[in-house]
């Protein structure tokens, strides 16, 4: 089978997120199952500017053929104001408003969309739903189209333009049941062939080094949060909560925040912000933590929660984030918090109860092994793609 992925950015420089998930699936389809995979993407890396920084053309990355196209526009200066306006009443916006929002969001690459017309794959997978190439590409491909929405409960989900996008999908691949439950009533996707797949996790690839020493806080206990340091990802909230916690509970405990920094935080003696770290350092730092915290309310899957369990750490998650709450409820691998006091009490309880933390970590690890081990997951994905290909392009039937 030949599979094409369409995603706004792609490459080793892209950490996590939907685009990272697309790369994982693409590479495992090639390496584990011997399929042929083409990726249609832009020359951008930065998700805020979408500026072309990589060369256009065809290259190969870990067995995957990567086709890069330049963009005629990145994130438009008007995006912020436009976004503020659509936030107010997204479902009542006109198609023109929504199209303008998609264009301003960027990256705009008509050459990529045109190239999809000549794509010779058996199935085309779009990942995620929000971007120009998905909105314009999914209605144009002649092959069966699979949509990986990676949707959160965000205003853009309610924009009318996305009804067309979801309507044009022959198959939908959700990260979690929570994502499916969110999308179905809004976009009326219930009759579309679908799967709740999630993402695969690797094995811990640390080298047994002291995480605290790597962070420059040797001898101190710490909790860890992995992911983009960004206000929208809850990083500012976690930072403020942790500082308040330390006022209430003085001691050596530190907070380590790993990941690219979109929103710089004030220096604080108890908070270490590392920026991007390599995989080996990440695994060693997570493995050395007392527990991991996912403060984000806007996750469509949260691989970092699963990776914490792979590293045998218990987790704390944001109580209004459906997917991460789904993970902890299904696994018993963590607890959630819904404000400062519950953050304080939950953290205090977990830190003081080694037996609880250990059992949660074990439950989480078992959950990951059962559901998200790559060999299991990639075969489920392959079977789903085959079923979509077998049914062919059905989207035109209902027009």
């Amino acid at each position, binding site marked *: 089978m030949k599979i094409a992925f369409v995603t706004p950015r792609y490459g080793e420089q892209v950490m996590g997120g939907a685009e990272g998930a697309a790369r994982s699936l693409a590479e495992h389809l090639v390496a584990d199952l011997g399929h042929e995979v083409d990726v249609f993407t832009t020359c951008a890396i930065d998700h805020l500017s979408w500026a072309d920084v990589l060369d256009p053309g065809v290259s190969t990355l870990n067995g995957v053929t990567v086709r890069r196209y330049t963009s005629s526009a990145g994130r438009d200066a008007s995006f912020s104001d436009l976004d*503020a*306006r659509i*936030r*107010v*009443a*997204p*479902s*009542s916006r006109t198609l023109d408003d929504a199209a303008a929002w998609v264009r301003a969001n960027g990256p705009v690459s008509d050459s990529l969309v045109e190239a999809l017309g000549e794509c010779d794959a058996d199935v085309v997978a779009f990942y995620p739903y929000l971007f120009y190439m998905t909105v314009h590409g999914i209605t144009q491909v002649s092959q069966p189209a699979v949509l990986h929405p990676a949707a959160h*409960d965000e205003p853009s*989900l*309610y924009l009318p333009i996305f*009804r067309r996008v979801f*309507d044009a999908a022959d198959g939908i691949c959700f990260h979690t049941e929570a994502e499916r439950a969110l999308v*179905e*009533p*809004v*976009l*009326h*996707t*219930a*009759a*579309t*062939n679908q*799967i709740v797949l999630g993402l695969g996790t690797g094995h811990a690839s640390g080298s047994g080094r002291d995480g605290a020493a790597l962070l420059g806080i040797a001898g101190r206990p710490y909790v860890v949060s992995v992911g983009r340091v960004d*206000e*929208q*990802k*809850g990083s500012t*909230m976690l930072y*403020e*909560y942790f500082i*308040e916690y330390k006022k*209430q509970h003085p001691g050596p405990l530190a907070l380590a925040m790993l990941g690219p920094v979109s929103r710089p935080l004030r220096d604080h003696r108890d908070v270490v912000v590392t920026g991007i770290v390599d995989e080996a350092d990440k695994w060693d730092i997570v493995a050395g933590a007392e527990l991991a915290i996912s403060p*984000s*309310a806007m996750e469509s899957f949260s691989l970092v929660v699963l990776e914490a369990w792979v590293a045998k750490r218990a987790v704390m998650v*944001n109580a209004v984030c459906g997917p991460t709450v789904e993970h902890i409820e299904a696994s*018993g691998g963590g*607890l959630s918090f*819904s*404000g*400062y*006091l*519950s953050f*304080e*009490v*939950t953290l205090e*309880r977990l830190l*003081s*109860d*080694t*037996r*609880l933390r*250990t*059992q949660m970590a074990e439950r989480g690890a078992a959950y990951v092994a059962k559901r998200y081990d790559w060999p299991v997951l990639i075969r489920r994905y392959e*079977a789903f793609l085959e*079923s979509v290909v077998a*049914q062919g392009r*059905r989207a035109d*039937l*209902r027009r």
Partner: protein
Amino acid sequence: MPSLRDCFEGPVDPVSSQEIDLDQVRREIAAEVVARRASGSVDAIEERRLQRLFEQYSPHAGGIGALSDALRSVDATIFIDPDVPVTSSQLAGAAVKKALRKANYWYVRWITTQATKALSNIAGVLHQVGTEIDRINRRLDLVSNDTPAVIKVAGATTWWHEQARMSLGERRGRVLVAACGDGALVAELNAAGLDAYGTDPRSSLVSGEAKGLDLRREGLIEHLEAVADAMLAGVVLTGVTEAMLPAQRTWLLRALDRVLIAQGLVVLHVLKPESLRGDARPIALELAGVEPLRPSTWVAVLAERGLTSVVVDGDLDTLIIASRGQ
């Protein structure tokens, strides 16, 4: 049993194989949160500030539901534009206004941003209230819960599967099998070249996927609410109509009108009322407090909606195959 305070401040427990009751842990944490809030351990103003940080990027419903249309007019007035109009009938008036706007823009923008944020939050709450009212309305409308019990009787066989498959023929498009159980009929239809999937509030998704079937753990009403118009080539209903309340039945018929394509087929498998009497009456049916329709009544009800039926009788059950224009 250690006290809660011991749990939080006591010595660290050695790792034990004894399973911890997570629900109990959550209850203890919730109780401790209440106790600390009452004790004023964190200044109330500071706690509100911290709570706002939590809520700032928390998702809330984006406006689905019956009241959302009415709320749109509220939504439309929320955004306060910092770009003050500068047109003027006076000579040089526009230039003066423009200069004033530019000079004060930072201040006006700050004020309008705060006001818009506050109003957006209020609107978000209104949408949540609207969604909740919508849900309550729906429940009142249907009187009972959304998922009527699936009714099966001992001794019923699958004689009608073959008839159902033949009637669906080689239709292109998805075919829904409601109350699909373990997916046997879905598998038969797929083997015949149809694109079938199933829903059942009782079924196990995992077992369906293991067989390569698209099976969902959902009730029929919940599912059809999330199906777009004209998406289905066929709907097979088995065991789902017997325990339906009248309002649910009416809703179902309207939904079938909406979700089926023009050439769509309704395959309705119903148990005969006489096979549901006495000791054979399923408990779920008795609890629902309804009397199932006779097959002939179904035929009449379907005819009212422009559907022509073909009826095939079994011993305990009846198959009704209904379509438009036959």
